[in-house]
């Protein structure tokens, strides 16, 4: 069973004061909490790296928690920040591929990650952008194949993918 808010807060206060055993328990419990947090948001095989990334950030920034405030919203804010950073890096990677016009050569891992990350927000995109992302980044079609299938020009497909992913990243970033 996961630790509750009062337990987390007590352990965190001890960690700020330099209590090593309490910190060990805190980091382990925070790891489990983060695992559950990210499981619904990113591809399963990327969860552990992101959990470790957040644990390191959490450890380095532990002085920013105020004991008068709840712990879990603080942890969630850090987790969300690192998650956005993860998406941003992923987006940059996607943009680079589009510029190089080799989007069709995406690895299977990229396609899966893109699908899991984007699916939840897809409904907020204009139809043409969603279709372009779905066909190329999820369905694995080439730009040319997607162009033939949708009737959009190849340039338009690229633009729609670029704008769509950018919009998705912005939506995630703006979400409270």
């Amino acid at each position, binding site marked *: 069973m996961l630790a509750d808010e009062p337990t987390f807060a007590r352990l965190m206060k001890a960690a700020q004061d*330099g209590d090593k055993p309490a910190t*060990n328990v805190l980091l382990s419990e925070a790891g489990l909490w983060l695992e559950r947090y990210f499981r619904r948001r990113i591809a399963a095989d990327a969860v552990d790296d992101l959990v470790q990334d957040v644990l390191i950030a959490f450890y380095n920034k532990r002085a920013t928690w105020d004991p008068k405030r709840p712990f879990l919203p603080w942890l969630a804010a850090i987790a969300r920040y690192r998650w956005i950073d993860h998406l941003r890096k992923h987006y940059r990677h996607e943009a680079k591929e589009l510029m190089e016009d080799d989007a069709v050569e995406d690895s299977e891992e990229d396609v899966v990650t893109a699908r899991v990350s984007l699916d939840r927000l897809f409904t907020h995109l204009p139809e043409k952008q969603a279709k372009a992302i779905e066909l190329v980044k999820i369905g694995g079609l080439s730009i040319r194949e997607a162009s033939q299938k949708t009737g959009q020009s190849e340039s338009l497909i690229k633009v729609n993918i670029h704008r769509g992913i950018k919009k998705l990243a912005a939506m995630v970033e703006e979400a409270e």
Partner: protein
Amino acid sequence: MTMKNVKPGAMNREDLIAAMTEELTPVRRIRPRDGAALIIFATVVAAIGCSVVFGFWTGMIDGSASPFFWISNGLLAIVGASSATALVASAVPRVGARNSSTTWSTAMLSVLPIAAIITLISVEAGHDHGTSMSDAGALYWECAAYGLAASSIVALAAIMFLRRGAPVAPDRSGWLVGLTSGALGALAYNITCPLDGFLHTAIWHVVPVFVAGVFWRYAAPPLIRW
């Protein structure tokens, strides 16, 4: 002690936690009021620096300062206070802690340059509202440059504090660095300026807020990401 050089995935989670626990040291908590104190200190330093360079203007003591002087500097102080409060709060990770006071106070401040532009147009159309282009300060843009230079001291303090903290919305923090430093830096310079006509104060004493806001919106995020 930090774990900045450790890459996620370089070891398994248990080993990572063990390594972090082993290196643990007590930390001094970062509080928003420390940031507020640092920003106030930087503003005072900027004001003293401006007074040394340009000389202190006694107009606000002997009563010769115009109402425009008080209105423009009062609004700058309000924008500076609201944006500095939001800025220091943004250094600490929180969820759903945003408020719109900075937006509204900046909107209020923007009434001044907008009113100045409308006045300029109506002067051109032949309506004299007690002001004219012959006002010596109307074209004296240098005050905006001096205000911007003073704002860099406040911006430096704000960025130093944000780097110690953990801002989770760097773009928003960037805006806040610009608005805070622009407002407080302009205020620090303006108290030395003897030009207190409407056109001068409404344009050149206020414009550093908007210039610094846009500049730091783009310049600050790379400096405060973590």
